[in-house]
């Protein structure tokens, strides 16, 4: 049994909002897809919460500053923090802007205990932040450090510490004693799983409905029961709940180590060339592990310059690192390294770092797998083709959006309604992919809507209905009485200059919507018509259409093509 790993987490609360705000006193919220994803303490005082709609936030606090989500801004600003921590701890892992994870055992032994290590790191952070350009906006920043035996526990502890620091205005690290992690986790609510461990909300809500409100309750069940109900996810839930950091033993042996290294004979200083070679290596790297049925969740990326300086950083992604994720991380690391070179030329306090790529080229890139587990989440289909097609389709969507603008490339999202145009909403494809892909696979139909049209539905639905004239046998315009009775049988439909003879018809079907709301209320009558085009040639053309009478005007809303 290996000794439990000790992990430390450093967390800066609401990093992206704090960075985006002009100064620490203005209320500011970062908005993505119309939802607040981060807000400053000043905005929080008005009651603005994460997950709120933009309009709601503006209603609570009218002079709130709304900023668009910009991951690159968060990343570049967070590098100040990363660098100051990196001076004390050699190997760190940056999860997202505002979150740093590192193995605590070495550093805390060196600096005399977990508590003093946390304080030392905080002091270093404070001085480096005060030096930087961001000093003004970072005054209100709440920083917390948590140390525990598992990642989940350390994250919760760090969050608690950050909240405590904010309220007391005093830095207070939170250390969970060694071997006490599972007891400490026990009374926590299961909601922490969705907040800190990427378990989706539906699962959490299901757990609560099953009466499992705390991690203790989840732990009390045997692992096999959870596995029986939830599959792989159940095993994962149990692992998280008991505060275990080790992944369960793999059934298949771990794949042999993959040497992924590229040396440049000529030092390279062009960033794009380096990224290109990382791209090639990352492809081979993920391929190697996927062939062995496993996936790399933690990776070390190493860059080495001509002068012998190294940039080494850990990257973690619980779902497994894909090629694109590795490239993205490498880019981030490289950019940070480049900018650190820039800065140190100006200031003298960090002389030992004055070796960006500007003066020396890069000679070596290496990817090292740090943690590998069996790939359980994504199973390729038999021929491995299915996910491939999905990937190429996603790429094509991206290209088409570049070509035509994102509003011209759309996917449908079900929203329900009795009108043919209402039941599906068209959303921009790029937007839909980033926000939710969970919409898939559900077969819904408009049948359970009262007043929806009967099956089959028309295949052509006009966004702007076509003006027509429907006459009876006397040539008078057809009307519908208050009791929804037609004034006479329809005989002829006139579209533009073309006359159609009505063979048969069905209806009228009244629809009355939202009578309580004068602005949005609708009253209309629908009629299905089978028409024959009056032509001179032998074969008549038969058309089935859906006509609508609204505000005394007949229109063709849809065509059964």
């Amino acid at each position, binding site marked *: 049994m290996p000794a439990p790993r000790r992990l430390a987490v450093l967390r800066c609360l609401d990093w992206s909002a704090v960075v985006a705000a002009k100064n620490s006193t203005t209320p500011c919220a970062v908005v993505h897809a119309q939802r607040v994803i981060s807000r400053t303490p000043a905005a929080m005082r008005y009651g603005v919460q994460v997950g709120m709609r933009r309009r709601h936030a503006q209603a609570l606090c009218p002079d709130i500053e709304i900023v668009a989500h910009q991951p690159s801004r968060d990343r570049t600003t967070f590098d100040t923090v990363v660098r100051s921590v990196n001076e004390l701890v050699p190997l760190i892992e940056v999860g997202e802007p505002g979150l740093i994870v590192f193995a605590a055992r070495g550093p805390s032994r060196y600096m005399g205990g977990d508590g003093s290590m946390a304080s030392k790191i905080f002091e270093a952070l404070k001085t480096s932040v005060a030096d930087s350009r961001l000093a003004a906006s970072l005054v209100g920043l709440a920083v917390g450090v948590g140390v525990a035996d598992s990642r989940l526990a350390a994250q919760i502890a760090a969050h608690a510490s950050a909240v405590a620091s904010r309220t007391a205005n005093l830095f207070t690290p939170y250390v969970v004693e060694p071997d006490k992690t599972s007891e400490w986790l026990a009374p926590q609510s299961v909601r922490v799983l969705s907040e800190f461990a990427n378990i989706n909300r539906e699962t959490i809500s299901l757990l609560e409905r099953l009466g499992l409100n705390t991690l203790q309750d989840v732990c009390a069940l045997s692992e096999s029961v959870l596995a029986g109900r939830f599959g792989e996810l159940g095993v994962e839930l149990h692992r998280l709940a008991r505060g275990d950091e080790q992944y369960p033993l793999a059934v298949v042996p771990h794949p042999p180590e993959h040497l992924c290294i590229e040396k440049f004979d000529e030092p390279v200083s062009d960033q794009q060339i380096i990224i290109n070679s990382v791209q090639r290596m990352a492809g081979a790297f993920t391929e190697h592990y996927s062939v062995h049925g496993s996936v790399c969740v933690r990776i070390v990326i190493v860059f080495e310059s001509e002068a012998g300086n190294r940039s080494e950083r850990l990257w973690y992604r619980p779902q497994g690192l894909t090629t694109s994720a590795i490239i993205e991380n490498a880019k981030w690391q490289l950019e940070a390294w480049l900018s650190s070179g820039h800065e140190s030329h100006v200031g003298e306090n960090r002389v030992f770092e004055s070796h960006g790529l500007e003066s020396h080229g890069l000679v070596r890139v290496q990817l090292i797998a740090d943690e590998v587990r069996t790939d359980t989440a994504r199973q390729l289909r038999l021929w*491995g083709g299915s996910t491939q097609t999905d990937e190429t389709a996603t790429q094509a*969507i991206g290209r088409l959006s570049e070509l035509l603008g994102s509003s011209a490339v759309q996917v449908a999202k079900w929203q329900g309604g009795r009108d043919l145009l209402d*039941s599906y909403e068209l959303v921009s494809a790029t937007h839909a992919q980033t926000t939710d892909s969970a919409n*898939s696979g559900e077969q819904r139909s408009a049948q359970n809507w009262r007043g929806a049209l009967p*099956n089959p539905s028309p*295949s*052509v639905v006009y966004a702007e209905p*076509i003006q027509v004239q429907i006459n009876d046998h006397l040539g008078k315009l057809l009307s519908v009485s208050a009791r929804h009775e037609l004034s006479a049988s329809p005989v002829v439909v006139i579209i533009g200059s073309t006359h159609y003879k009505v063979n*048969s018809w*069905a209806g009228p079907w009244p629809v009355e919507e939202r009578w309580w709301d004068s602005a949005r209320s609708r009253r209309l009558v629908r009629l299905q018509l089978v028409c024959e085009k009056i032509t001179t040639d032998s074969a008549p053309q038969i058309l089935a259409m859906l006509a609508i009478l609204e505000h005394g005007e007949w229109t063709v809303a849809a065509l059964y093509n």
Partner: protein
Amino acid sequence: MQLDTEQRVTELSIKELLVAQQLGAKPQVVERLAVADNIRDLLPDSGLVRGRIVRCSGDAGLSLALSLCSLATQQGSWLGVVGVDNLGLVSAVEHGIALERTVLVHPPKTSREWSITVAAAIEGFDLLIVAVPERLSVSDARRVQTRLQSRRAVMIIIDNTPLSQSRSTSDSNGAQQFLADVVLDTRTKSWSGVNGGAGYLQHRDVRIRVSGRRVARERNYLVTRAD
């Protein structure tokens, strides 16, 4: 006879697969996209053969195109709908289209931009339903067709003429620039289900004339469809 051809095509694709594996290439995707049983007999190779163009014209063209695509999208192929205005999405779902793998693209109606868009869509999607703009130059059409054949996608061309326009102008549109491998010309004979105010539209009888380059002998079918 039908079965014989089907067997031969299957054998052929297996043989190709084996050869490809021996050469160390990645296994090729199947050469045909599956089509629902009830309309399979309409097509000459009892399936949508990759790299080909199918044209669905007439007054049941769009719903026929949707039902041709339905099974393939359920089995994981992506469908791009390019330049088709006013597609009824509820109808598409009723035909069995998997909407989570359907992308609607609205390119400009000029020849150049349209062909660039379609070529980009061919790169990513197995199936395309397209409406061809009025003026499409011969060279742009040729380029799209070449790309289609090299990328092994299937393109289904439909008429998308506005209701107010008469039928005679639609025949002179850009769809003529493509040499369709299979042409399915539909004409509704009658609708059933409605009767003088009662009932609702349920079935229709459609005459489908099958012709085109890949069709040896022109055939006529009378099909009752629930759409």
